[in-house]
Structures are given as C-alpha cells and as structure tokens.
C-alpha cells in the first residue's frame, strides 16, 4: 500500500472490523468522525488514515479541531459519530487493545512536577501493567535514547521546557507503542529544542518503523516527503503527500497552498517552508 493509497479519505476508508489481521490495518484510521460541544461543531465528518511506519503531519490553525481529534483517539472523549481504529482495533469497541498500541504527547504538559524523571516513567509503566524491574530497564533505555540519561534522578520541576517535552516523548515510548501521537509538541520551545524534538521523532519513524501523527500549525515542521492532512474549522480540506497537496491546491509551497485551501493567512510568527 502506498502512502497516497493510505490517504483514502473518510468515505472510502475500509471497514476495519472486517480485517482478519491487525497487522494489515492502517496505523490509524479515522472514518466519518464528527464531534460537537453543545451546538458548536468541532469536527465535521472527517476521515483519513495514517499508514504504518509513516510520518503524517496534521496541519491546522489553532481552533481547527486537532486537540479534539486527539481526545477522541485517546478516548478522553467519547466518539459521538464515526469510527476510529488503531491498527485495526476499534477505539470504542476494544479500547484496551487500541490504547496499548498508542503513545501520546498532549499539548499541555502532563508530567508530575513533584516527582523525579524516573518516578514519572515508573508510574506510566505501572499504568500499562509493566513490572518494576522491566520498567526500570525500559526507562533507562528510553532516557538514553532521548538524551536524558543523566537526569533520571532530577525532579521534573528542574528540567527545561525542551527536556520536559523529551521526557514526555520518552514516556510515550515506554510501553513500546506502534503509533505515536504528538499534539503541538514543540509549542513554547526555542528553535534548537524544536529541531531536536522533531529530529528525534523522525528518527523513530525511520529507525524503528513507528507511525507518527504530528499535529502542528507550523509549516516549517513539515517535510517534503511527509504525508499531510490539512484540518480547518473541523473539516479535512486536503490529504496526501505534501507535493500532491501543494499541486492540487495550486500553490507554490505549503504556505501558499494552505492559504489557498483555507482562505486564511499564515498564523502570526509562523515560519514558512
């Protein structure tokens, strides 16, 4: 299956429940999902898939519905309409299996500031039923991978913003997920910390085959080979390889393509590629 095929859209997304083996299913399939807060419609019949082992950018301005979508995928909110599948496991029907395959970094920090780096990781491991000895080993592993090995005993409160984000990524990887969701993971970080985190995540895709859905409103975080989903005012406006989206929108780059698609200007301070 090619990446373009993977972006088959909500209407044509295959029925995940009929798939015989989860390994053949997309890493993430969003099918006809709608969500409203009272009368305000946050997501309107959206659909897309993320291919296994791909880096997919979910591009949208603030208020586009990215965080709502993440809350639905992670089951923080109930799915009002549509289906969400993770490697073939329906989030509503088999949440345990689906969430086991999922690592997530939310937009707001979700670390316990009063605990140490290692204690935060051990707590997360316990929530996934990972025994203490194994959890310690895995923690050391992921901390080394994210360049935080020397901070294991530090209080989270004493870490920099970039280190906290890396710790959150380390934590998300602790239970060895196959799909990683990152919601505006670089918000509030300086240029170097942003680049470091993006590089780490891209390495996870290329070296370990982890599928990534990277929500952002920053154009310069999107690579030319990435898969792209443009979300605007709760609707998917475009999806496919970046080059295809640019060409279909008649833009010269991702910035102009986005503006053509949404009829809006780039977010202030948002770098362009």
């Amino acid at each position: 299956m090619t990446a373009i095929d993977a972006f088959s859209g909500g209407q044509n997304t295959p029925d995940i429940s009929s798939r015989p083996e989860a390994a053949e299913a997309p890493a993430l399939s969003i099918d006809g999902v709608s969500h409203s807060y009272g009368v305000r419609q946050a997501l309107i019949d959206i659909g897309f898939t993320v291919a296994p082992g791909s880096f997919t950018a979910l591009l949208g301005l603030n208020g586009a519905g990215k965080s709502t979508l993440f809350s639905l995928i992670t089951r923080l909110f109930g799915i009002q309409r549509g289906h969400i599948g993770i490697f073939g496991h329906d989030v509503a029907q088999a949440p345990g299996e689906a969430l086991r395959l999922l690592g997530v970094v939310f937009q707001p920090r979700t670390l316990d500031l009063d605990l140490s780096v290692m204690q935060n990781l051990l707590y997360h491991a316990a929530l996934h039923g990972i025994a203490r000895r194994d959890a310690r080993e895995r923690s050391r592993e992921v901390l080394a991978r994210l360049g935080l090995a020397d901070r294991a005993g530090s209080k989270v409160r004493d870490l920099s913003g970039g280190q906290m984000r890396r710790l959150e990524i380390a934590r998300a990887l602790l239970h060895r997920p196959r799909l990683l969701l990152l919601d505006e993971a670089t918000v509030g970080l300086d240029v170097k910390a942003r680049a470091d985190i993006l590089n780490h995540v891209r390495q996870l895709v290329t070296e370990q085959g982890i599928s990534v859905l990277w929500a952002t409103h920053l154009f310069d975080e999107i690579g030319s080979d990435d898969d792209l989903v443009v979300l605007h005012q709760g609707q998917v406006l475009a999806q496919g390889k970046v080059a295809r989206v640019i060409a279909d929108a008649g833009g010269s780059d991702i910035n102009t393509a986005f503006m053509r698609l949404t009829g809006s200007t780039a977010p202030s301070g948002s770098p362009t590629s």
Partner: protein
Amino acid sequence: MTSAAISPVRSGFSFAEYLICLNGIVWREALRFLHQRERFISALVRPLVWLFIFAAGFRQVLGLSIIPPYETYILYEVYIAPGLMAMIQLFNGMQSSLSMVYDREMGNMRTLLVSPLPRWFLLSCKLLAGTAVSLLQVYAFLLIAWFWDIAPPPAGYLTVLPALVLSGLMLGALGMLISSGIKQLENFAGVMNFVIFPMFFASSALYPLWRILESSPMLYYVCLFNPFTHAVELIRFALYGQVNWTSLAIVGGCTIAFMVGAIYAYDPSRGLIRRGPAGGET
C-alpha cells in the same frame, strides 16, 4: 526495523498487570503525599485542634449519657474521637477530589485515563490509593490521641480498620463524583461550604443524635439521612469491636452508589462527553 517486527498486541490483561497498576497508583499517591508534608501536618492539626481545644472547652457543657457502644460514662473527648477520625477521611476524600480537578486542569489526569486498563479499574485504584493515605492519617491521629488518654481497647485498633477502609472508600467516591462535575479549580471552594461543613456538622460526629432530636426534630432527620453520620457510627462501634449493622448497610450502599456515579461520570462516552477541551485547546 519495520513495523512487522514490533510485537503484536495481546487482548485483555493478566491479574499481575492489574496488580502492578494498582501498586503503581497507590505508590504514586503515597509519594505525592510524602512530598506534601504540609498536607500531612494540616490533616493532623485540624482534628487535634478540635480534640484539644473544642472538646476540652465543651467537656463541661455537653454531658453525655451512656449510649452504645459505650458501657459507661465517657469523656466528651472520647465521644468525638470517632467523629474526628471520620472528619480526617472526609477532608482527605475531598482533598483527593481536589487533586483530581487539579490534575485534570494541569493535564496529569490524562496520563491515568489514557492507560489501556479499564477505566473503572483505574478509578477504583485511585480511590483505594486515597483511602490508604487517609488510613495513615487516621492512625497517626489515634497515636497522638492515645497520649491524650483516648485509648479504645487494643483490639479496637484492628477492628476499626475495615470500617475505616469502607468509610474512606465512601467519602473518596463522593469526592470523585463531585470532582467529575467541577470544571475549574476555583469552583472547589463551594465544595467546602456546601459539602464538607454541612456533612460534618449535621452528623453525630460532635453530638449524639438523641441530643439533636431534643433540640430540633428536623435536624435530627437531616442527620439521620446524612451518610457521614453512619460513617461516624460505623467507626465508633468498630473501635469497640462491635458492628452497627444499619450504618454498615448504609455506608456500603452509599459507597457502591457513589462509585458507580463516579465511574459513570468519568466514562468518556457519558460524563466527559459534555465537557469541552481544556483551555487553549480545540
């Protein structure tokens, strides 16, 4: 490495995984409690102020007749000790729910709720963890009270344990239920005024029910229908090796009702669905 090399997902969870999860949540709650020394001290100071100052002052005013489970005349301090133990648990239950609101606002709650284990189990673990912390506080209070000549039978320290666990679960579940309906931390002050104080004062914690009946029959019925009254009585009787079956039934029933309510409220397809995203997110 390709995605095919990653281990396939198992369905369901083993007993050991449930146990590890429970252990982890209790461990985290205990760590947080130990890190917050002020919380431990204030949890002890509150009932001790009631015991050393209020009870000492009212000892001469509030005469008590012999009522079960007591077999002789007792000092007022001895009478209010079970009420103060329940008060510790009441405040701890509300404190736990306060921390749940805080965790939700700060985002920490997501770590818990995104766990693949069933949500009812996660919330039950959280409840058990809060109860375990309240037990530490109650036994520390009993130790200090012992030096103040409030000494139940030695076996009472053991027989009261199941009663404390049950009342701790009930009050924790009530706190959890309340926390599910609170959107912002600032709203929690209302819980103090509308839940904690009425529950504590309209109960048998400070005065026996027969005295309340003498002064106000209406208040008597309010106290009678207050589950906190029955938590106090359950603890009072258990401290003397006896069981107040009515209180046991009411506290048990309320625990189940509050827990079911809290689990329902935290179910993503029900309670949380009505909430919008956290501030700044969409």
